[in-house]
């Protein structure tokens, strides 16, 4: 009898849990701005956020989400946007796609978001069709080339050069800087996911155009603990350069095993394969000489755009040592979204802003100056790729140093 009662109690507890989901309608979401509810004549614009804080990519997702949230807080600090009540409501989906699906539904139906700041290839790909059907602009940190396709993904926007464009820029750099009589040879190291395979065909095609020979391709699993067989296979073809399209885990495996096996290929990582994390994981001497794409600025670079970030940090009692490049990345993404909302609000002064209006706002952004934090972005109704420009950097003495300014393969 006692056991039955305790079970009943347990069941009631579970019911309460589920009921609280429908109970807390508007009251309990972690919004990052003041709670004025539109009664003072301001229009409320809700931007939804999908974060990965506790999931597989949480180590880069957390600072990115912090950067996004920080920008909205900074706006509030500076008095907000004229006539608008901006809210960022975002939650952690831990890189589980079914959760992203449910979260997106919640943001769309319950919070009435009119634009989404997404995160990774997983959620961006999974929600691509739905945001098109629901007409919500989607800015994320996935720079997959297929997101540029307006017919397939009319509501997705890229805030940095796509992986394919990054690869093309690297190829251009190789052609211009290769020393030696033979044409440069290239290997491609990637993983077996949509993210990994995204730029491969485009890189191979462009390599043919510019005269770089792709001699090898190796697939290395995203969670690989060792990559010796793949690297030995690659060494047989002896490429001069190798482009890595991986996240930090597999990249560190590759760099470490390459050093162990004594492979002297020059490794160049695309933007997610570069970043401070690599140096922390493999250590300064394994990372020395590793090159990579720097899509956004590091806090220790003294860019003009860092001024506002520093202002925000000072108000919070933090310094630039507390943030990293991913924070800057999130900040920039949020900034671009807010710019679009501002433009849309001016263009449509009456009524609630809708997704298509914000999309128009995005598409009218021309050469938005990001103060060196990232390459300036421009959009157009037929171009959702913000920029094709990136920078290349190299690890020297345990730190990333840019060796080029923002450039693209079309320059």
């Amino acid at each position, binding site marked *: 009898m006692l056991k039955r009662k305790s079970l009943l109690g347990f069941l009631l507890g579970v019911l309460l849990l589920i009921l609280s989901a429908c109970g807390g309608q508007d009251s309990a979401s972690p919004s990052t701005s003041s709670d004025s509810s539109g009664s003072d004549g301001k229009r409320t614009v809700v931007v939804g956020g999908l974060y990965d804080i506790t999931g597989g990519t949480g180590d880069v997702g957390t600072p990115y989400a912090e950067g996004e949230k920080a920008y909205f807080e900074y706006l509030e600090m500076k008095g907000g946007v004229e006539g608008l009540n901006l809210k960022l409501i975002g939650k952690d989906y831990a890189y589980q796609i079914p959760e992203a699906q449910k979260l997106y539904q919640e943001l769309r139906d319950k919070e009435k978001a009119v634009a989404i700041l997404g995160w990774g290839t997983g959620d961006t790909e999974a929600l691509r069709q739905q945001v098109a059907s629901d007409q919500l602009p989607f800015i994320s940190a996935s720079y997959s080339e297929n997101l540029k396709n307006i017919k397939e993904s009319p509501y997705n926007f890229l805030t940095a050069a796509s992986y394919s464009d990054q690869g093309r820029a690297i190829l251009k750099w190789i052609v211009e800087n290769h020393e030696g009589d033979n044409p440069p040879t290239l290997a491609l190291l990637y993983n077996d996911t949509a993210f990994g395979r995204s730029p491969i065909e485009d890189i191979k095609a462009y390599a043919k155009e510019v005269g770089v020979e792709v001699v090898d391709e190796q697939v*290395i*699993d995203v*969670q690989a603990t*060792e990559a010796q067989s*793949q690297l*030995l*296979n690659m060494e047989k073809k002896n490429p001069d350069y190798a482009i890595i399209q991986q996240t930090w885990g597999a990249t560190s495996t590759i760099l*470490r095993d390459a050093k162990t*096996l004594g492979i002297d290929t020059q490794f160049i990582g695309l933007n997610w394969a570069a970043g401070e994390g690599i140096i922390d994981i493999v250590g300064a001497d394994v990372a020395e000489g590793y090159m990579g794409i720097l899509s956004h600025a590091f806090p220790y670079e003294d860019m003009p755009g860092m001024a506002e970030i520093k202002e925000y940090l000072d108000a919070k009692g933090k310094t630039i040592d507390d943030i990293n490049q991913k924070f800057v990345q999130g900040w920039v993404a949020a900034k671009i979204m807010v710019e679009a909302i501002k433009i849309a609000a001016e263009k449509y002064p009456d009524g609630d802003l809708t997704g298509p209006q914000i999309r128009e706002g995005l598409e009218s952004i021309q050469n938005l100056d990001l103060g060196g934090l990232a390459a300036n972005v421009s959009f157009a109704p037929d171009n959702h790729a913000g920029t094709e420009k990136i920078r290349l950097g190299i690890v020297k003495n345990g730190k990333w140093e840019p060796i080029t300014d923002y450039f693209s393969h079309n320059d």
Partner: protein
Amino acid sequence: MFLLQMLINGIVVGSIYGLVALGFVLIYRASGALNLANGEFVLFGPYICLVIMTSLNVPFLAAFIGTLIFSAVLGLVVERLVIRQLQNAPTISVIMATLGLSSLLAGAVHIIWGHSTRTFPPVFPQTPLNLGGIIVTPVYLWSFIIVVILLIVFSIFFKFSKIGLAMRAVADDRQAALSMGMSVKFVLAVTWMIAAMVAGIGGILLGNINGVNPTMSAIGLTVLPVVILGGLDSVIGAIIGGFLIGIIQNLAGGYLDPLVGGGLKDVVPFIVVLLILMLKPHGLFGSRGIERV
């Protein structure tokens, strides 16, 4: 030359597989449970070791022993709280319980330590050794040596020590062991403790090789092919299965990857599983069960 390097790679990687598989097999023999949470036992080890090393500032060896103690406690807690309650439950309940346990433990690790990768301060010498043209990192070599030592230790343990004999008896026939006056409770607890310790050692070695982060628990699934190949209830089978799977993985990766476009390393063990299940379900060294109606 290439072949030899692949083989050596496979053997040293396989030594870690064998270590993790050992814990698996021990638990299966004693509790009859497929411990799908073994990956999480592997996960806890290096984190605890790192925490002990960094916060208490002790040398590696002391932290190692501390980790062993902690893993033993973890195994004990799991056995007492979870497995004990499910003694008579059907197989699927126990499998599901270990799956739930793996979520729980993984969640606990994420709560406490987050997702970023941490690195061990260099414990083993970093420069790779060159043995006649074959390149081996000292970490791998050490793990191989440790596995062989453990194998010898366990063989002696199971053959000659009282507890070892008791473990074998309980694994063989629990009722008979009970009627002989052995404390089955104690033996089960010891089994889980040893399994957790072994998994923890495997985790520390893995952590030294590649940094410590939550994806390490994936090895829990990779050792399933190892134990199937070796036989679910054979300790020797686990170790040899580990070597074999490591070798097959590397050979497939080295020779077949270019043909298929890569990614074979992870699928091949499961293809091997299917083949083994078709041809010899009890593995190379496992024993056929007798089913009574």
